[in-house]
C-alpha cells in the first residue's frame, strides 16, 4: 500500500514536504513504518524522539496501519 504521510515542524523540513508518499506492505505496523522512515530519512534518527499519529491519535508501535489511514509524523512538540 502507498500511504500519504503528513509531516510537521522539523520532520516536514527533513522530509522535504508536508505530505509524502511511502510504500509499505499491507498490514504493516507503526514500528515497521518507523523503520522505513528512518532508512529513507536518516536525519529523523537525530531527533530527540518522534511519534506516529494514526487518524489523529498517538499510535503504539505495534498498531497496524490500514490503507486510507491518516498517518502523521509528530516530532517533539513545543507549543505554548
Amino acid at each position: 500500500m502507498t500511504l500519504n504521510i503528513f509531516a510537521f515542524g522539523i520532520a516536514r523540513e527533513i522530509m522535504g514536504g508536508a505530505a509524502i508518499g511511502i510504500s509499505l506492505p499491507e498490514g504493516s505496523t507503526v514500528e515497521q513504518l518507523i523503520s522505513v522512515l528512518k532508512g529513507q530519512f536518516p536525519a529523523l534518527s537525530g531527533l530527540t524522539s518522534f511519534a506516529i499519529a494514526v487518524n489523529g491519535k498517538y499510535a503504539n508501535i505495534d498498531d497496524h496501519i490500514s490503507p486510507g489511514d491518516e498517518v502523521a509524523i509528530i516530532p517533539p512538540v513545543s507549543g505554548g
Partner: protein
Amino acid sequence: MTTYDIHISAAPLDVAQCIAGVMSPQSGGIDIFVGTVRDSTKGRKVLRLEFEAYEAMALSEMQKIAGSAAAQWPLHAMLIHHRTGALQVGDIAVIIAVSAAHRDAAFRACRYAIDTLKQTVPIWKKEVFEDGEIWVAAHP
C-alpha cells in the same frame, strides 16, 4: 458541568474576551495563563517565533486535556486558545483560562493544562534568531 472553549487560530488572541468567556455567577476564582514571545532564549536575541499545528489532532488533544482537568477538579469552564503563524516578540501564543467556585481548583487545572499542552499537543515552534533558526526541543 464544565464548559469548554478550545480554539486554534492564526489571528491575534484576545485576553479580555477569553476571561469574560469563562466568568460565571457561580465562579469565585479564575486563573489565567498567558504565554508570550520572549525577546531572547539562552542569551540569543529572538526575532520571531513561527508556530505550526497539526490542527485537527491538536484540537482533539487540547479537548482531552480539558476533559481530564474537569475530571480531576470541580471546574466551571476551561478555555484553551493557541495561536499559529509568525509571532513577534510580545505577542501572545497561548491563553488558558479556568474558572471554578474556589481558587485551588482553578490554579491546579490551569497549571496542569499548560504543562500537559507542552507535552502532548502537536504544535511546534521555530525560534528565528538573527543568525539562524531552530525547531524548539527537536534535538537532544
